[in-house]
């Protein structure tokens, strides 16, 4: 593999404690090294901002639900079509682009690692198929356990170790990365068209509450020593007054891991709502952010909403149905037997709409009110809050009070009475942004050991070089330059190769899929457990032997083996 020497890079690398040093970076064999041989390819960065490759810790880019979002939306497809160009294949789509569209556009933004936020294990094979055609980013799949009958039965019996064993078997079988809970208990209730209201209500079918599922999954996760924590989409997404549910959930989270958080709560914007209905709907970002500030064991991501058309998609089937009843537009639903649900509807977030305006403010507030940027990561829950191509605008909003005020003047005028945003003066700096878009993600996902998220020797050579000279821009005033600068890298380097140059992909690429394999003692190998086998035999519509994702689907991959406490 070719060697590259980056000269005069202005580096911000929070994990390594580097905050704005001009330095050279040597790359060989796909990794950052101390030095290269005599004739590397030299790239003169000319003092441009150089960061570790971007990592999206919660996005929807591959799999059954995402593809159905494309399938049902020809109007979205025609909104973003590009022709074949060099090694770039054609792309279609705006809010749910084709796999190549996702890959090229993320690469142009400097992103090199993506976590698909919600994968039903029964359909994981599909996600892996699409990963192959998302060639410019490494990928991981969060696996849904919110309605997993095997796990729920074990938790009901109070057998955490058995629950952990079932999780371990499933993650290994479907080549998944982490435990995802989406509206725990709610997706099971949705099997008969119901939902759960909050964390202390009993769910149908199993003698459990959502709180018990969350706590059980957290303990199982730590027994398995998984790299990432439990990744939670709280109950009650999108409903006025849900902040109490969110805070209540956070209150249940123990601090069990000294390397990372114990709970990752995703798209918290959608879970920080006050009011008793839509008429008195308001922001409760302050109490939620305060809770996070007091509990270092929690990391959240924003789930920022940006104005315009997009497509919402989540495993939270009942929530999507409620959204459908509000919008009366197209609605898709896809329940997955014994596991989870999902729903999709298109939405248009409008500045003239008060609720949408408040949602927009809440996401920003969370990022500005959570004191420690390592605890609040930048996402839109792509494409739920907005397509990821809006990230540069979000960065600019966080760095510029003036930009926020200019935008605030455009939105629904009553917003001011419902949100604290206008009173928040904080402006994030370059280092904060580097944390919130890569370093924080790497640490939260537990993949720094794999060389992700930093730029010191030993790290994967995943690097983004932006046409930004930090000493020449006043972010507070020149927010347009922030947007332009982050919208298109000069170079995106993936595993030691320049994959994208000024917005165009220049090679085909070959991604790596990261997956976990907890080392489970024989007594906890559930594969041959008669009760577990019977569950499959009687209730699934596929044979147990056809369920695991075969090696053929992995292509290039990295298996993370973990020692367990079983």
């Amino acid at each position, binding site marked *: 593999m070719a060697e590259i020497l980056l000269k005069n890079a202005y580096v911000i690398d929070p994990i390594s404690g580097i905050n704005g040093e001009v330095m050279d970076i040597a790359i060989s064999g796909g990794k950052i090294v101390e030095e290269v041989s005599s004739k590397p390819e030299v790239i003169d960065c000319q003092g441009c901002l150089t960061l570790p490759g971007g990592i999206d810790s919660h996005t929807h880019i*591959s799999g*059954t639900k995402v*593809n*159905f979002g*494309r*399938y*049902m*939306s*020809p109007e979205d*497809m*025609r909104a973003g*079509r*590009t*022709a*074949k160009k060099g090694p770039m*294949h*054609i*792309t*279609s*789509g705006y809010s749910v*682009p*084709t*796999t*190549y*569209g996702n890959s090229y556009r993320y690469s142009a933004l400097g992103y090199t690692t993506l976590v698909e936020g919600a994968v039903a294990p*029964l*359909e994981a*094979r*599909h996600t892996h*198929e*699409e990963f192959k*055609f998302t060639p410019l980013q490494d990928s991981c799949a969060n696996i849904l356990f919110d309605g997993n009958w095997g796990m729920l039965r074990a938790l009901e019996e109070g057998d955490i170790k058995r629950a952990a064993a079932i999780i371990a078997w499933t993650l290994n079988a479907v080549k998944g990365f982490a435990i995802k809970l989406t509206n725990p208990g709610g997706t099971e209730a*949705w*099997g*008969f*068209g119901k939902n759960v209201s909050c964390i202390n209500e009993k769910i149908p079918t199993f003698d459990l509450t959502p709180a018990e599922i969350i706590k059980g999954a957290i303990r199982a996760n730590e027994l398995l020593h998984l790299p990432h924590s439990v990744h939670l989409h709280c109950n009650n997404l999108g409903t006025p007054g849900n902040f109490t549910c969110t805070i209540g959930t956070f209150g249940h989270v123990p601090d069990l891991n000294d390397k990372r958080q114990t709970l990752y709560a995703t798209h918290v914007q959608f879970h920080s709502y006050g009011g008793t209905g839509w008429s008195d709907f308001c922001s409760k970002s302050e109490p939620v952010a305060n809770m996070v500030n007091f509990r270092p064991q929690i990391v959240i991501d924003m789930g920022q909403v940006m104005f315009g058309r997009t497509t919402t998609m989540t495993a939270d089937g009942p929530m999507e*149905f409620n959204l*459908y*009843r509000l919008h009366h537009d*197209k*609605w*898709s*639903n*896809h*329940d*997955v*037997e*014994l596991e989870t649900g999902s729903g*999709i*509807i298109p939405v248009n977030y409008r500045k003239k709409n008060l609720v949408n305006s408040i949602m927009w403010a809440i996401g920003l507030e969370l990022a500005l009110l959570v004191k420690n940027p390592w605890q609040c990561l930048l996402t839109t829950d792509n494409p739920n809050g907005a397509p990821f191509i809006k990230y540069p605008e979000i960065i600019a909003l966080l760095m510029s009070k003036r930009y926020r005020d200019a935008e605030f003047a455009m939105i629904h005028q009553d917003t001011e009475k419902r949100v604290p945003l206008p009173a928040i003066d904080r402006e994030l700096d370059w280092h904060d942004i580097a944390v919130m878009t890569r370093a924080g993600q790497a640490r939260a996902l537990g993949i720094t050991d794999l060389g992700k998220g930093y730029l010191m020797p030993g790290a994967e050579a995943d690097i983004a070089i932006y046409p930004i000279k930090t000493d020449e821009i006043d972010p507070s005033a020149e927010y347009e330059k922030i947007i332009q600068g982050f919208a298109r890298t000069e170079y995106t380097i993936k595993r030691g190769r320049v994959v994208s140059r000024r917005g165009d992909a220049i090679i085909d690429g070959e991604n790596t899929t990261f997956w976990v394999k907890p080392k489970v003692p024989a007594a906890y190998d559930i594969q041959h457990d008669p009760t577990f086998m019977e569950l499959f035999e*009687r*209730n*699934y*519509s*596929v*044979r147990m*032997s*056809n369920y695991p994702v*075969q090696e*053929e689907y992995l292509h290039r991959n990295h298996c993370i083996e973990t020692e367990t406490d079983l």
Partner: protein
Amino acid sequence: MDIKDVPCPFCGCLCDDVKIQIEDNRITGVENCCTLGNAKFLSKSRLQHPIMRKDGKWVEVSYEEAIDETARILSDAVRPLLYGWSGTVGEAQVVGVHLAEEIGALIDSTTSVCHNPSILAIQEVGHPGCTLGQVKNRADLVIYWGCNPIEAHPRHMSRYTTYADGYFIDNTATDRKVIVVDIRRSDGAKVADEFIQVKPGGDYLVLSALRAMVRGKSDVVPDSVAGVKKVQLQRVADLMMKAKFGAVFFGLGVTMSRGKYKNVRNAIELVSELNRKTKFTISAMRGHFNVYGFNEVLTWMAGYPFAVDFSRGIAFYNPGETSVIDLLEKKEPDACLVVASDPGAHFPKSTIEHIAAIPTVQIDPCVNATTALCQVQIPVAITGIESAGTAYRMDGVPIRMKKVLETDFPTDQEILERIVTRIREMRADG
């Protein structure tokens, strides 16, 4: 030797519990399979060599010559059409999409003549669906509308619905009601608790009436709608609303009859409406074992499930214009590649006349009706028996098809890759 849990490469049910007995690399027995799957597993006839038409006669040729000729035909074409795809796996379909993109072709699948209207409807109103196991475990009301599972998907009722054991169903015989809606009293209708006989082309009107009734607006509905008495409609609407979990399955009787996708749209909107009262899902009875897989592959690669025109360098989609029947009826294609399907047996006469009139190549293991219409046929391994790969069940669950027999025949994927390579070589040579 026995091989267990083999997925069946016949219909969209993709039953994955088939047991195959093999002796001397031949299938000698099949268990758990239906008549249709059995016939496929036990089939022995196939084309042994590539064949090409020369001077009005069929002659055997080498793979190399056949691939050369195919590459030449496709390179020269101004409006090439790549059609079929439902009888092969995703790994081959991907190569097909890349080929279409590279040569600026039209690409379409058998979807065009089966559930194309379902997709158009879903694109207007979405799709409240679920996996088949969800129906098996929960549904206390199953409605087959314009489809006949006994003849087209013989194990659908025993694996997923009427006769399947379900977690929440104590007694399948008494706790699960079945309604059949059709223009004729099919075999399925004979085992149903309620049969609704609709006049041909009347499905849309009946669905509208049911939607109004579910909304509590029975008063506007006339005494009889498309041959169905209002009292029966009211009884059925009540059954639907009282169900704990209702599952509608629909087939070609809905998609192919007058109004096409509007029929499906109305059925989906009925189901969406019912979700305000109880739990309801709706699912298309997809035909070929991997017809849904092609829709998935083309969607993640080009953004649309079928009928894509790459001729302008971007993906353009408009069924009715870029779909196979319309293209052939208007005599647009000047070359055609048929993969893993048999338009000769399934397309209207006027359209296959055009296939016969232009240079057409078929990639298929067997001699079929399309054979007569081509210039070249390239035999391949039988997908799901002699070659492995991914297929998507009618509910979107992906299943890996198995290779249970050894063969010297190349796979669809290999042949397609060789064609792509050959086209690139020809272009490089000018």
